[in-house]
């Protein structure tokens, strides 16, 4: 069974020339038949399938639609046409540490962040020690978040999110977390999750990391898939695109 089935998804953004948000401006706009926005297709008919337990890479230049695609998979955005089917629980790493509050302790923040990820208090208690052990922050659990360094902050967030035990994980460039030693730990953790049979969607500009993790990938350009298949080949196409354009 496939973990993700995306069927011809398209996404259109409206880019206003001048932001109109008041009702009056909108009414005037409608009466004058003047829609002051440009339509911009961020994704055009994107279809792909990801098998259960597969690690799948998405590469492409800035503005090619990678983040839009990931946000649609994460259900933050909805496609204008087409459909996405996802099986199991999905965790998205679009941004780490959402809802973290500076005035609360590391412990309280772990509970709050977990609740945003849809994990019950009981579950958090079970993985609590693992979260702090992985983040190497056991000593700091009673400290207010504002007193932690930004590296510690990211480690805590990453560790909480990775222990949420989802079936599918969406990762967008979050490997700039912590120092090199911790980054290596993150890669090891991802490898461990792969072995457990988790499905991972990996978006990155770090082609080495994509090559190391993903067997299959797709290349997006201007909202369309221009290459899909074995990562080696996709990356070669990407490099050709970069050099050609």
């Amino acid at each position, binding site marked *: 069974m496939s973990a993700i089935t995306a069927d011809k998804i398209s996404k259109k953004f409206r880019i206003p020339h001048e932001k109109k948000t008041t009702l*009056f401006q909108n009414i005037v706009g409608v009466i004058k038949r003047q829609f002051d926005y440009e339509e911009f297709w961020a994704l055009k008919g994107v279809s792909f399938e990801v098998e259960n337990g597969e690690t799948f890479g998405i590469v492409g230049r800035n503005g090619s639609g990678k983040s839009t695609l990931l946000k649609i998979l994460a259900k*933050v*955005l909805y496609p204008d046409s087409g459909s996405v089917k996802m099986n199991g629980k999905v965790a998205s790493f679009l941004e780490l540490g959402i*809802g973290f509050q500076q005035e609360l302790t590391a412990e309280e923040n772990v*509970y709050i962040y977990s609740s*945003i990820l*849809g994990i019950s208090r009981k579950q958090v208690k079970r993985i609590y020690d693992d979260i702090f052990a992985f983040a190497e922050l056991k000593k700091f659990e009673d400290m207010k978040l504002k007193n932690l360094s930004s590296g510690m902050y990211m480690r805590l967030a990453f560790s909480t999110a990775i222990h949420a035990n989802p079936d599918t994980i969406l990762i967008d460039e979050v490997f700039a977390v912590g120092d090199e030693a911790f980054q290596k730990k993150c890669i090891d953790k991802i490898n461990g999750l792969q072995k457990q049979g988790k499905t991972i969607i990996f978006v990155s500009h770090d082609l080495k990391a994509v090559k190391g993790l993903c067997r299959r990938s797709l290349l997006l350009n201007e909202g369309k898939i221009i290459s899909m298949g074995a990562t080696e080949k996709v990356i070669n196409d990407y490099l050709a695109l970069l050099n050609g354009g």
Partner: protein
Amino acid sequence: MRKGEGGARVAERLQYKAKMWQYRELVRNLTIADFKSRYQNTSLGFLWSILSPLLLAGVLYFVFRHLFGQEEDFAANLLVGIMAWRFFTIGTTSSLHAIVNKPSLVTKVYIPRQILVLSNVLANLISSLLEFVVLLSIIFILLGHLSITVLLFPLIHFLYFWLIFGAGLLLSSLFVYFRDLDQMWEVLINVLFFCSPIVYPLSVVPPYLMPYYMLNPLTQIIVIYRRVMVAGDIPSLTSLVGVIVVGIVVYLVGNLVFSKLQRRFAEEM
């Protein structure tokens, strides 16, 4: 085929309900955070929730007592009206901002977005319940007794909560698209205040206007509160049914509009 689609819709609804349950922890956290933030950095804290309606009631009492002071239980009725009014006005105006005030929870992560409105209205429900507890003790002092019909209060308050939640869903989702709505709502709230029997008794409403006047659900609710809390009567069945129907309709419309509009929330923020 159509039947299969219907089944899928039902399954989707059930799945959605299960999701809401999965996120109960988040509802709790957001409710507590909302409740706390309201009185943050004030030295009297939650006392303001009691103090400000009491002060308002005091002012209104001294202004209007010469006009309506001879009405039966004027002071008690005035207080009930103000407390009921507060739940509506604070509940709707604060939930209007519930989505816009939490951009990161809308644009960075998936959660059932109704939760943002629900937790906001729940925080208001807690304030309101505490206010009514204080109100009941004041009524006891004013009247010398409390009637048994007070036991109906939780049911009525729940219906009222549902109505406000529905209105909150509608307002908060529209506000993402039309940022004038908060100004318009403020005006409308003021109009509603004078169209509801809060500072004046029902008897001053001209008879020919009465049928229209009673269409205001807030009027019905305030009358019901007064009956069970002050007069010691059971509310009339028609008004109770009316409030239930309005509550359900507002909730259904609010939920429908919210579900449709939330699809583009992340782009419009």
